[in-house]
């Protein structure tokens, strides 16, 4: 069996370790595993280590639960792993990393859009469309 093993091990050229989300679950029921894997591997394929999980759907108390193995996360970051953007955003929200700028930008955009919609809605009766955004 040892002789077969070397043919089953996949060798890559280049690539690096990334910490990213691997999608699992069923139809209309996603579930993410936070995983350290080679960047060239399939998204849901063989990984080096599972570092946590994220359930994107809110539970009975209206919460989205995420688990993070911070000690192993620190180990992989120390080994030089990179992070995918959603992983960075999640860790920023968790407080382990500083907040991601796109989170802030997304929040501002959402707020601006909501303000615009709020301004447009009552403007049917009173005045014309509000100021240019």
């Amino acid at each position, binding site marked *: 069996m040892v002789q077969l093993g070397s043919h089953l091990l996949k060798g890559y050229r280049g690539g690096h370790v990334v910490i990213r989300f691997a999608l699992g679950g069923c139809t209309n029921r996603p579930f993410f595993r936070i995983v350290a894997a080679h960047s060239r591997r399939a998204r849901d394929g063989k990984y080096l280590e599972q570092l*946590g999980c994220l359930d994107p759907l*809110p539970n009975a108390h*209206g*919460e*989205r*639960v*995420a*688990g*993070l*193995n*911070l*000690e*192993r996360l*620190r180990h992989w970051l120390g080994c030089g792993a990179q992070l995918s953007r959603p992983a960075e955003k999640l860790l920023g*929200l*968790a*407080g382990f990393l500083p*907040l991601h700028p796109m*989170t*802030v930008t*997304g*929040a*501002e955009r*959402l*707020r601006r859009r*909501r303000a615009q919609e709020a301004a447009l809605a009552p403007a049917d009766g009173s005045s014309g469309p509000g100021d240019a955004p």
Partner: protein
Amino acid sequence: MAALGAWGSAAAPARLSRVARALWGWRARRGLGQDAGAADEGKAAKPSFEDETVQNLLYKMTGLNLQKVFRPVKKELKPPKYKLMTEAQLEEATRKAIEEAKEKLIMPPVLKEREPIDDVLAEDKFLEGTETTKYVFTDLTYSVPHRTVFQQDRHEDILNMCIAQFEPDSPDYIRVHHRTYDDIEKHAKYDLLRSTRHFGGMVWYLVNRKKTDGLLIDMIQRDLLDDATSLITLYHMLHPECQSAKAANEGKLQGVDLIKVFVKTESQKEGYIQLALQAYEEAMATSTAS
């Protein structure tokens, strides 16, 4: 920087040079005001870890074994370099080595355990409307069993890793340190830490819990009488209400007499210490005779 200044200047030991303050600059980064208050309380009640006298005693007990301090750290193998030197140059090199060794032996601070932080870390008002649901983050870390590390006598390595990874007042740091010290005390492996910067912390821990007998026996067996007297002096400083402290203050005892008084009143393993003292005195007698 104010908090760091309070902590550093209140003790003001000469040994805490700029190097140490840069090393322990985490204080400045945090800027927690409550630490200054805690340090003051400790000093008012009884001698704390950072007192100059305490630090001097602990430093004397640590010893300065150059061979051990500059033991080669596991790096890539290189053939040793030989230099030809005159006597004067050799003395100069030894002196410089002692200076560097002193810096390596600076003790990491022993602090009270930090209370768990229950307060809000950050409130970001501008994120308010984005998420309709709350996020709950769980920490899934679990610690590695310590048995394998202790069996291999790698106490010093694990304490070094602890210093690198944890802040000195986090519960993890304190828990690992206490467990290491307990294991060392159980198996009497004091010599593992002897010329390292963890020795002071270990002695402080043992003296606070009055578990000094094993250490005392070890010191007497290695003929380190000065260290034994410093240990007992430290014990008296920390527990001034005990009998041997009062007797020592009245009689102003020194050296072996101090140890004998201490042994009679305070120790649990009296028999062992008496035996060790006897063996030491016989050895002294034979060496002076011959």
